């Protein structure tokens, strides 16, 4: 019964408070999102990934770093090592499970840094206008015109290999599209009446940008971030594969592929399993992103 009331409360077309309206909008978004099977599959895969990463010590059958040279390159389905072992006899499944932590760590950091930088640059550029706009957008264009992977390579080369530097390099190449989006949104919002109303009430630029423009840019940024996640995972894996991201013995998936590459013809599973993991996760992000776009930004859909 209570559930029934809650549903009716959420689906009302006469909300009684601001929070009520917000909850109701969220719930309706969720309903339309839920009907998108592919997006739900993506969401479930990602939730599983988070669970696996959180519970890594509990569920992984072996220590991901312990070597067992007597048992190296064991094939798929070996008792105790379902996904086999790598060239140092480490359990591949356990390494994949711990690798999920690294993947999530990289994704989370980039997803925090790049959109925030983009949001700052874009909204300031759009709101202030004039030469500030010209300069900021020129800088954005320059970064946008760069080949991303090559730029990230050059950055990592200068900063030194490692996860944090890889994150920094990827973020440095990932922020420009967010700045473009945020600027476009700001330009449309800036000329609306309610902004003029707040200006007349004496609100300063800082207050208007942070309290009234940012919240409205968030939804299109979230969609873009989710769609970009797959690219970020692939870029991080690529850097790891080149030996410029996470360093051994860290069980980063890209680095694991690079290691398995040497035995690809005779021991194919060593490189195949981490590749499947990367593929699954980035596919999940793409599915989720498509679904979110349909819910949050119906105009952009085909």
């Amino acid at each position, binding site marked *: 019964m209570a559930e029934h009331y809650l549903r009716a409360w959420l689906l009302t077309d006469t909300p009684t408070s601001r929070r009520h309206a917000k909850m109701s909008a969220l719930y309706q978004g969720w309903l339309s999102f839920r009907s998108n099977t592919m997006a739900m599959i993506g969401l479930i895969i990602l939730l599983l990934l988070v669970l696996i990463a959180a519970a890594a010590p509990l569920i992984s059958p072996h220590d991901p770093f312990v070597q067992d040279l007597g048992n190296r390159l064991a094939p798929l389905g070996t008792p105790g090592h379902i996904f086999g072992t790598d060239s140092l006899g480490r359990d591949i499944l356990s390494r994949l499970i711990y690798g999920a932590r690294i993947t999530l760590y990289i994704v989370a950091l980039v997803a925090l840094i790049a959109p925030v930088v983009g949001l700052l640059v874009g909204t300031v550029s759009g709101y202030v206008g004039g030469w500030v706009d010209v300069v900021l957008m020129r800088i954005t264009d320059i970064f946008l015109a760069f080949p991303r992977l090559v730029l990230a390579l050059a950055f990592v080369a200068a900063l030194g290999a490692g996860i944090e530097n890889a994150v920094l390099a990827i973020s440095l190449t990932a922020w420009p599209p967010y700045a473009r989006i945020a600027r476009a949104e700001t330009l449309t919002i800036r000329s609306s009446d309610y902004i003029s109303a707040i200006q007349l009430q004496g609100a300063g630029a800082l207050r208007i940008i942070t309290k009234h423009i940012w919240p409205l840019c968030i939804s299109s940024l979230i969609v873009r971030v989710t769609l970009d996640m797959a690219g970020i995972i*692939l870029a991080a894996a690529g850097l790891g*594969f080149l030996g410029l991201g996470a360093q051994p013995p860290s069980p980063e998936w890209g680095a694991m592929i690079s290691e398995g590459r040497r035995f690809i013809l005779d021991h194919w599973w060593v*490189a195949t399993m981490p590749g499947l993991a990367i593929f699954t996760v980035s596919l999940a992000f793409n599915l989720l992103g498509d679904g979110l776009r349909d819910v949050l930004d119906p105009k952009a859909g085909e």
Partner: protein
Amino acid sequence: MALTDNNTERRPRGPLFPQWIKTTAMTLSSIAVTLLGLLFITFIIGRVMPIDPVLAIVGERASQSTYDAVYLELGLDKPLIVQFLYYIWDVIHLDFGISLLNARPVAEDIARVFPATLELATLGIIIGIVLGVPLGVLAAVRKGSWIDQVARVLALVGYSMPIFWLGLMGLLVFYGILGWVGGPGRVGIFYVDVVPSVTGLILVDAALDGNWDVFKDAFSHIILPASLLGYFSLAYISRMTRSFMLEQLSAEYVTTARVKGMSEWDVVWKHAFKNIRVQLITVIALSYANLLEGSVLTEIIFSWPGIGSYITTALLSADMNAVLGGTVVVGLIFILLNIFSDLLYKVFDPRAK
């Protein structure tokens, strides 16, 4: 252009400069600023790196006087802005410095490896266009049918797949297990340097030389990496083609043509497709630029001696001149292709005005 002329005629007095001069000046200056930005970024990267450029040249055991001499020679005593101007001057003269690995000019090395990348990326984009455009058109015409679904899944998988991993799997299956294609490298070991290098593109060189054995061998080596790159551009090209076509097919002139009783083939190819050509070329130019980048990881997997392999090898041995030289060249081509596609759009699509 015709549109602009009409506009100026209507005014009592024309502006000081015709519109096209203004547009050209704007475009040129924006190209210049972007290129300067590119050089500035590579310059900064070269400065913040933890490697001492002098030590890298003279070695650890050089005397202080040698060190000082090289320090002055590199212009490191000058202010940063002067160093930057020197750097621009050098790059304009195609001087990227000396590679620390083999003591040869970086520009020469790049000129030597670049044709390999060009050959790979060009064959890749051809595969991507030949398969991707018809697939996109079909997917739009038969929207919602199985072919649309197939195109959708192909694209989704393409967006989600690590290119280097797919390359490894391709090698495993088509080279290791089936033996259908040649392995890593550009040609088999028996055919290395058999044909004289004229263009640097092995397929072209072999054909010019009339040496079809080499051609066949080179083809069996290039087909797998090129198909791989082709697949990734196909994913993008087919999606874009589909959405362009959908937009055209819902337009009124298409309905009119159909009502007139025009055959579906003519409606699709003679009317709708004709109108998306400019957009399509823009997309193709962009994905060609992306292929140059995607070839970095592909080249590693296939031991392809192109610019991607060159940059990464240099990276791992801290040969900064080579890394930055390679970055500038790839960035330059990338930017020029971007600008080209932009211009094309502006010149040929009247709506962009």
